[in-house]
């Protein structure tokens, strides 16, 4: 299933997986201590050609409309990882529920790295 859909009197409203992943990405970036959402090969290649993609965020929508999101993150140096991950989970859940009315089952955080560069 590629998109979540809901029906009202006028027709069907479909929410694409990309929408869910971009909401998750923005919500994750709002949390203090998050440097960026980690990229994968596909999103890296798309970024080279000037397209913004959140394909690194995996979204699964089950048949009973439960959403499962996996967010890969790069965390800033010096922050407590479980604390930041917990705040990201909470912020992503709130954002998804507020914007899409979806019931979020799992928000899995995958910390891929610590910010490199300046100390």
């Amino acid at each position: 299933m590629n998109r979540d859909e809901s029906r009202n009197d006028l027709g069907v409203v479909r929410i694409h997986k990309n929408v869910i992943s971009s909401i998750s990405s923005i919500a994750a970036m709002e949390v203090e201590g998050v440097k960026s959402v980690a990229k994968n090969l596909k999103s890296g290649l798309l970024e080279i050609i000037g397209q913004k993609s959140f394909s690194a965020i995996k979204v699964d929508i089950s048949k009973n409309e439960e959403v499962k999101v996996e967010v890969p993150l790069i965390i800033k140096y010096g922050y407590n990882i479980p604390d930041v991950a917990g705040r990201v989970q909470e912020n992503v859940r709130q954002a998804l529920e507020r914007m899409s009315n979806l019931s979020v089952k799992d928000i899995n955080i995958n910390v891929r790295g610590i910010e490199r560069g300046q100390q």
Partner: protein
Amino acid sequence: MRFLTVIGIVFYATVIIVIGLTLIVFSLNLLLPQDINGLLIFSQSSQNSRIIIGFCGALLILISFSFAQLILGKFQRERTIAFTTSSGQVTISLSAVEDLIRRLAGIIPEVKELRPNVVVNKKGILVDMRVVLRSEANIPELTSRLQDITKSKIQEVLGLEEQIIIRIHVAKIVHDEKDNRKKKDFEKEDYSTIPFSGYGRA
């Protein structure tokens, strides 16, 4: 995902077998250089065959990329520390922990270079560190300090109370040329900035 892995493995096995067979046939003199030459000339002679060969090349590159990503992704997924919260699972890549430890080299001036390798097993978190020290360092004192700092940093940042074993291997002790140069420059400056310092007062 498993289906793609099988296709990738079969594809690579086939390519390697074909290369192997070609080499064997070539070594047995069953395939002559003229034949290869003729085949290459034939394949380059028409535009259609060139287009097909070009597409095959591009396809091979794409398959290699996706297969490499699949394998690397699998390896990355295996090397993690995981814990579960009420909202879902949190996995921390061990390379992230390695990044964190690598940054400790900036905190301790006597450490010139630091290469950590983090492994997680039943005993706990095992950190193997390969360090390059500057010549003025007191090794027992420094390594013990490094172990303490690393341990407390991991506990502080990861918030885990698992046993952390830190092994340090001093790989090299380097003579810091920059410091020596600075010292020499300073001595020279000190000597040259006092004009007529050799003369006594009348």
